Every structure is written in structure tokens, then in C-alpha cells.
């Protein structure tokens, strides 16, 4: 799905070669400030590498129309951002941004239920708790139905039990719908239980490469 080659970005990231396979759930782990979020933003093309390239579905990231690319490879940021308005407004705005038809009420309600959210579609988005906002933001991305989901610590505001339940559902959804899910996480519990492919980033480098470099 993604093939990274000789990628360099400021002093933040330096990756010689890295492949992220299509399908399944890939976890990106590493200490805070190691460059995980930067890598995710690069896959979403919110940031361009200073040098090197990322091939996305066999095509250089620079050859993609950025907007079309982001509709296929949508990202959820670490701190959930709510737009002014109700939960419904927040769910529909994602579809509006992606230029997809609005989803019917029952589909929106179903999505909330699926994410263990017991809130009204009419609730003011600002009145939600951190965990609720995080799941509304997740629902917003899921509704746009991208081929790849880039999730930056999607469960940081959730308790362990809810996090595990949501991740289990996400993984099943990914498997059944043939979606690729790439997730940055700090939770070793989630990695152990759900990750099919784990990438460790260490001070801006793919850990395996960093190790090789250290040996040489």
C-alpha cells in the first residue's frame, strides 16, 4: 500500500526504506516526539518530505491530487476537533468535505451505537466528554469510507475496556471491508492484541534501520 524510500523531513524523520502492506492493522509505536505523527501526516500528505518519496498504491505521492488522495487515505488527529454545531453536524461535515452524499439519520445513529456512544445526534458537540469527542471524530472519518484509515492514538481518551472493544470492532470492520488501518498508539496492550504488523519509530528512524546503522 505504502512504499517509503529515502525519506527525509527536517530533523524529525529519516527512513531509508519501509513498506506498509495493504489490508490489516498496522501499529506504529515509539516514544513521544519520535516522529510517529509526522509519519502519519506524511501518509495523508498534510506534509511533504524534504527528499525521498512515498509510493501510494504504486504511485508517487507527488503525482496524486492531494485532495483525492486524502479522500482515499483519511486521517484522524490525536486531539479530536469538533466543528461548531451538533453531533449530527459533525458527522455530516466529513461527508460534505469528502464530497459524498449525506448519510441518512438511521445510519448516523447506528454508527454512534457501534462505537458504544449513547448520545443524541442533537447533542451540542462542545458538551461532549473527551472520550465521546474522540469517538464522534472517529465516526466522522469512518462514514467517509476511505480505503485507508490513519488513526493517531484513537483511544487515548478512552478507558482500557472501551478502547479494546472499539479496536476489536475496528479490526473486524477492516478485515471484512478490506480496509487498511494504520494506527499510532502508546498502548502495548492494544499492540499485543490487535497489531498484525508493528513498526517501531525511534528518534525519527525506522527502528530496524536505526539498529543496523548502530551495528555498522
Amino acid at each position, binding site marked *: 500500500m505504502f512504499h517509503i524510500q529515502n525519506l527525509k523531513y527536517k530533523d524529525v524523520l529519516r527512513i531509508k526504506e519501509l513498506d506498509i502492506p495493504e489490508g490489516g492493522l498496522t501499529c506504529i509505536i515509539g516514544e513521544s516526539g519520535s516522529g510517529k505523527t509526522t509519519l502519519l501526516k506524511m501518509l495523508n500528505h498534510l506534509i511533504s518530505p524534504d527528499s525521498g518519496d512515498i509510493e501510494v498504491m504504486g504511485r508517487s505521492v507527488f503525482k496524486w491530487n492531494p485532495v483525492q488522495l486524502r479522500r482515499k487515505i*483519511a486521517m484522524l488527529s490525536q486531539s479530536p476537533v469538533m466543528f461548531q454545531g451538533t453531533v449530527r453536524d459533525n458527522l455530516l461535515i466529513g461527508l460534505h468535505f469528502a464530497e459524498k452524499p449525506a448519510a441518512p439519520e438511521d445510519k448516523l445513529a447506528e454508527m454512534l451505537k457501534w462505537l458504544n456512544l449513547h448520545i443524541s445526534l442533537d447533542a451540542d458537540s462542545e458538551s461532549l466528554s473527551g472520550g465521546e469527542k474522540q469517538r464522534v471524530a472517529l465516526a466522522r472519518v469512518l462514514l*467517509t469510507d476511505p480505503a485507508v484509515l490513519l488513526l493517531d492514538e484513537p483511544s487515548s481518551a478512552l478507558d482500557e475496556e472501551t478502547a479494546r472493544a472499539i479496536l476489536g470492532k475496528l479490526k473486524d470492520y477492516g478485515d471484512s471491508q478490506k480496509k487498511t488501518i494504520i494506527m499510532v498508539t502508546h498502548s502495548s496492550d492494544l499492540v499485543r492484541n490487535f497489531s498484525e504488523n508493528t513498526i517501531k519509530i525511534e528518534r525519527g528512524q525506522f527502528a530496524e534501520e536505526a539498529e543496523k546503522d548502530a551495528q555498522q
Partner: protein
Amino acid sequence: MHSNDLTLWQLASAYVFILILLFIVKVKGIHREKEILISSIRMTIQLIIVGYILAYVFANAHPLFTILILIFMLSFAIYNIYQRAKLPLSPALKKKIALSMAVGVTATLVYFVLVTLSVSPWYNPRYVIPIAGMIIGNTMTGVSLGVNTLLEGMQSKRSLVETALMLGAAPGEASRPIINQAFDSAMLPTINSMVGMGIVFLPGMMTGQIIGGASPLMAIRYQIAVMLGIVGGASLTVLLFVQIGYKAFFNDRYQLKQISTDKNKA
């Protein structure tokens, strides 16, 4: 001499107001004497110079003079917008401000002078220069407010714009709320000034015409026309500006550029 002409002695008597002001700030210990003095002297000298320039230009009407003065006024207005920006302006944004001012003001002025006022000859400085001054001045205020709202919005709502981009929004769609807010804040003063007109205050141009001997009924005709021209000029320019201005915050890969917050480094 005309009965309503102001003699130099009469004019000098008006400086009493400045003397009183100077006396008050001195007694109250508000250290603003220097500023009051300098701004009064500047105002006097600037207006004397303008008076002589206009007298010369009116007496020797020529299209080149009129156009040069218009270019000077427009450039000064653009420079003023740059100066009033609360955050640093990128070169790309400066270009867009200048472009929208030039296009918006010129289009409005051409229509207003040729169609509404049917000025003949078209470059008649007696009409074109004061009218342009009013349109440019009000447009400058509007665009200046629009620029500041856009800058502040792009900075404070950066995460909202970025979230929209992440979901596949085009830059224009991602910035829509900020663009609308910038248009709103830019147009509000002009719209409000229409509401208060004639009740809260008599506009300067109308006052001038009435003092100069024109009938109030003719003065209001001009005032209404000028007010509409101002609304037209300001809204057209601000609309142009917000439609192209937001683009200065994105690169060609539709990524948000970093915004510098240090005005000195701009």
C-alpha cells in the same frame, strides 16, 4: 469675498480647541502634549499641501494627473493595510491584498464615474479625486478588518482547517467558516454606517456641500449615490480579497503553510 468663505483669522480661531486640549492634558499630567502638537501641525501642513496640489490639478485638468493621483492614493491605502495588520503578512498575501484593492477599487470607480455620475470629461479631477478618496478610504478600512480576521482565524482555527483537510476537503471548503467571518467583519462597519446616516451624523461630504451653498436635497442625492458606491467598492474588494486571500495560507500541495507570529520577521 463670498459670505461663507473662511478668513485666515477665523481659521486661526479654531486652533483655540487645540490650546484648550493642551492645557487640560498639561494640568491632568497626561503626557500627550507632543503627540497632540505634532498631529495638529501634520494635519495643517498635509492639508495645505493637498489644497495647493488640488488647486493646481483642478486648474490644469489632465488625464495623466488624475491617474497619477489615483495610483498614489491606492498605493498609500494598500501600504496602510499592510501596516495595520496585527500579524505578519506573507508576500503571497500582500500580493493578493494589492490585487484585490486594485481590481475592486478600479472597477467600482469606473462604473461610478462613467455611469452613475456621468462625469465629463471622465478624468475631471474635481469629481474623480474626492469620490475616489471616499471609496478607497472606506474600502481600505474594510479590507484591513478582513485581513486581520482572516489572519487570526487561520491561526486560531488551524486545527479545524487541518482536520477538514485530513478528511479530503479542498482548501476553500476547509477555510469556509473563516472566509465568511472575514467577509462579515469587513463589511459590518460599512453596513452600520448606512444605518446611522442622517440620524446619528451628517456625512462629511454632505456637510461640506451644504456649507458650500448646495441645497440639502441635492446634497443628499450625492450622498446616497456615494454611500452606495462605497458599499459597492468595499463589498466587491472584500469579496475578491477573501476569495483569493485564503489561498496564501496553502502551498501548491494543498498543505497549510506555517504562520509566523513575529511581525518583525515577516
